[in-house]
């Protein structure tokens, strides 16, 4: 017991997760190093991207370890304040934020730049966990769903106002923890259906879609012709789906910005534009594809070295991995992520408190959204959405916010035998 008391702070920490965390940070550092033009990497320099990233990684590690020093209960208790604080930051950024590339997403404090959207993720995760943990709603009633939607929706709307669609999209990840806690699977199905219809609406003429939907609904009603309730809900769903189809048309033209529209059209192969909007995606795919099985080798990637992929150290860092380390390297990175995600889910499931479990699920699903959207974007299966690859992409805000997100959970997990 004396020994346990001696390193009480680090007692029961899941070091395997920490190792994966360090491994991913290392992958990030190595590939950011490779993305810097060769002449600038000759001497180690803290003003270069990799130099700064090293500082971010080290400070991130310190930050993570210091989180472990807290008492896990703090996060539960203070979650409303943390959430409130991040909301305030999100509002502040709309007023005093720096505009970078059309997005008002940064608050500059001296030379230090803060991206509130990154921190809003764990604020939201904490409050959602607190809500579910305290009231144990099963999401069978409108009220509980509305409260959860409000908790997630408030930061989401504020982020949309920046506008930073990519970061806002990540908040949809909270659907999964809610699903785990009892939200009907139909919500996921409806969500999936909306995505499918959205894409189908671009590829197939609307009237054919309507015919198909009506035909399927008709068949379904015919098979269940004795069950009035099913007939009623099917008709409702059909009408909503058709209404949605028309809504897409309007929303697509009125709500989305031109660059977002062209990204979607490029992804669906409806247009090609290798010099303009499609340049990033094409060049990223070329870089990754040219890595072939084993890659060109560390610092040997010509597309990487000669700057063919824009945003290469940030959102498109995966292209460097693909080019220099090939299919094998990509597989290792994806395996690391999947291992981390599955482990986080398993850790979440072993929690005694609902708070910790919901938080754990939130962490895993946020990471999952980031990984899927980011890698999907670099290989052209998802439209370009500018969100970082967790722990690997260059950038302090992103790295620290993922570190905080993860280490809070690790702290909660180490206290899993505790009192919540």
């Amino acid at each position, binding site marked *: 017991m004396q020994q346990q008391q001696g390193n009480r702070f680090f007692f029961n920490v899941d070091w395997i997760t920490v190792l994966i965390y360090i491994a991913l940070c290392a992958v990030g550092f190595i590939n950011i190093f490779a993305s810097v033009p060769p002449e600038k990497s000759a001497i180690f320099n803290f003003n270069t991207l990799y130099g700064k990233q090293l500082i971010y990684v080290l400070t991130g590690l310190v930050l993570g370890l210091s989180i472990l020093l807290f008492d896990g209960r703090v996060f539960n208790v203070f979650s409303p304040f943390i959430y409130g604080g991040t909301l305030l930051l999100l509002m502040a950024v709309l007023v005093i934020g720096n505009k970078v590339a059309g997005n008002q997403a940064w608050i500059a404090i001296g030379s230090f730049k803060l991206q509130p959207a990154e921190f809003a993720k764990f604020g939201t995760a904490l409050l959602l966990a607190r809500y579910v943990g305290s009231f144990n709603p099963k999401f069978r009633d409108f009220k509980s769903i509305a409260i959860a939607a409000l908790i997630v929706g408030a930061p989401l709307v504020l982020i949309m106002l920046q506008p930073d669609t990519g970061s806002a999209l990540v908040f949809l990840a909270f659907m999964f923890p809610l699903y785990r806690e009892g939200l009907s699977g139909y919500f996921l199905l409806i969500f999936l259906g909306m995505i499918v219809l959205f894409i189908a609406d671009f590829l197939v003429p609307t009237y054919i879609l309507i015919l198909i939907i009506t035909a399927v609904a008709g068949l379904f009603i015919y098979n269940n012709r004795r069950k009035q309730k099913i007939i009623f809900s099917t008709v409702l769903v059909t009408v909503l789906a058709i209404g949605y189809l028309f809504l897409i048309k309007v929303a697509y033209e009125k709500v989305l910005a031109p660059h977002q529209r062209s990204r979607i059209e490029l992804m669906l192969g409806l247009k090609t534009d290798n010099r303009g909007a499609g340049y990033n995606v094409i060049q990223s*795919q070329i870089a990754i594809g040219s890595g072939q099985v084993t890659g060109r080798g560390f610092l040997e990637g010509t597309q990487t070295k000669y700057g063919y992929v824009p945003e290469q150290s940030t959102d498109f860092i995966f292209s460097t991995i693909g080019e220099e380390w090939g299919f094998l390297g990509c597989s290792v990175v*994806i395996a690391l992520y999947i291992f981390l995600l599955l482990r986080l889910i398993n850790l979440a499931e072993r929690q005694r408190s609902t708070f910790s479990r919901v938080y754990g699920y939130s962490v895993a699903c946020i990471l999952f959204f980031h990984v899927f959207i980011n890698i999907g974007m670099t290989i052209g299966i998802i439209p370009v959405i500018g969100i970082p690859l967790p722990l690997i992409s260059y950038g302090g805000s992103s790295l620290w916010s993922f570190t905080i997100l993860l280490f809070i959970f690790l702290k909660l997990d180490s206290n899993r035998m505790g009192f919540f």
Partner: protein
Amino acid sequence: MDQLFNRKYIIQGLFIVIALILLGKLFYIQVVSDKYFLSAESNVLRKIYKYPARGAILDRNMKVIVQNEPVYDLMVTPSEVKPFDTLALAQALEISVADVRKKLKKAKAQSAYQATFFDRQISVQSYARLQEIMYRFPGFRTQDRTIRHYPDSIAGQLFGYVKEVSPDDIEKSEGYYKPGDFIGKSGLERSYEDFLRGEKGVINMLYDAKNIAQGSYSAGKYDINAVSGDRLISSLDIRIQRLGEELMKNKVGAIVAIEPSTGEILAFVSSPGYDPNQLVGKDWGKNYMGLLANPYRPQIVRPIAGQYSPGSSFKPVDALVALQDGAIDPNTTFTCPGYYQAGNHKVKCEHIDGTINMQRGIARSCNTYFCHVFQNIITKNGMKNQRQTYAHWHDQIAKWGFGQKLGIDMPFEKKGIFYQADHYDKIYGKRWGYTTVISQAIGQGEITSTPLQMANVMAAIANRGYYLKPHLIKGIGDKKVVKKEYLEKNYVGIDEKYFQPVIEGMRDAVNSPWGTAKESRIPNILMCGKTGTVQNPHGKNHSVFIGFAPMDNPKIAIAVIVENGGFGGSYAAPISSFIVEKYLTDSIKPKANGYTVKAFAETNLLPAIIDKTKKPKPVKTDSISVKKLDSIKKLKDSLKLRSATIKTVSTKPKELKTVLTDKPVIQK
């Protein structure tokens, strides 16, 4: 543990499915498809071509006649251009500021990242001025390359021109030519393109996304050095080429001179000519359009593309074939009453000579004599077998090169017209005989030949029975290789013994008091020749002379055609004599009759331009349309005036002189 616990597996399953989708796409673009790998290579790898110097061309005395000259282009890479002092650049280039803007806009439209031409062939002065202030214009650079230069400004049609490749050329070359390469488009530049162009060098360079060079690929392991083009030694003698062009000034026509023993072409004059330097560099388009607009059509290479009736110059061949066939012997005589009666039609003779033999018939160019010879040849196997006999005769004549390409090393050689018996069958059925085609006896009617073919006939006679294919290049590269086909003798099927009487007749044509070319006698040199006066339905007759010299051991065979020159003896023969004399003695002695090169050079024989738009005459190219028994009137003229280019009615050249006598106008 509640029932919701199972939802863990759904979520974990989703993670795994998505990961597999990502890996699947990665597997496709990294392992299955090599499209991305190739795109990556083309992203970074640029082949920088090094252009070799094009081969020079020398004349037979090793004087350079085609060489290369450095020129400077101003290139611009629009993406690297920063705001600059447009006025300074405009002043350096001696163009207006508006032009600078226009050119920059044009370059931008072509490519923002590639270097494109801003201004081609800037003057040496501009180049020097620019060198000092170049640092003020980022994104601009000068590039030197070479263009053709012709120090003597002669033989434009012969050399042809070099021009940037067309998309068509690129396709045909199966990848050898790239946009911006140059290729010989006509003349020798075209026919010897493979030797002249040399081998392009390649440097493999790596470029970054901003199109800035980052060094060579694999330390230059795959680079290739440029190899200069082969030097060509031409058979031309620049002295007589220049003389020939001088003599043909203000005349339409051609001169071809051949060294009989080798088939090497000594002079190749096409008139009107042009300065080959016109068709070089940036003024190409303007000057080329100028040539096209010239109603005398200087772009026609008349020695091989002009098709003229050989006229009386055909008679020696006639005589030789008749002798070989036994249709006549050298002493056969015919009586000339001043015409020859061919069925219901008379072939006129220029004189009434009474009874003459072959030697005199040649010297006097007697139409009657040769119509009889032709009659004898075609009817020798009986009146009923005329068709077969004609076919045999056709084959004998064809051996001399009539009606076929001689295979000169120049593109676009014409065959001339010389019909097989079948042709007449088509028009007349079985009902035709020697009278139908009698005009061929005197080289008129349905027979045309190029000046090259005529000169070649002379070479064959000079050689007493064979010719070597005429050619313009006698040595390729340092080893002085000659194409094998130009070393083979082509026999014309006449025994050597028959040549002497014919050659004597040709000697008399020039050297006897009764000869048709007696005014063209060269002191101390026995030139043999034959005049021809080609009937021309469009205007004054064409003056033709073919010959060779000296009579024994001939060194030069020549054919001269002066369109609208009248009698063969009036222009073509004297011009030939000057060239032969110059070639054999390297000088021209004053003539007893007062003929001078200067006088001939100054004589203007350009025909008046007739506006054919007024009364369009169908040009009969199809032989089927030649229905009449006597087709003399259906002659074609090499000077087919295109109605489109001619606006005015009869714009007579100022110095046009109508030569009435067979003597040229001598200017004292």
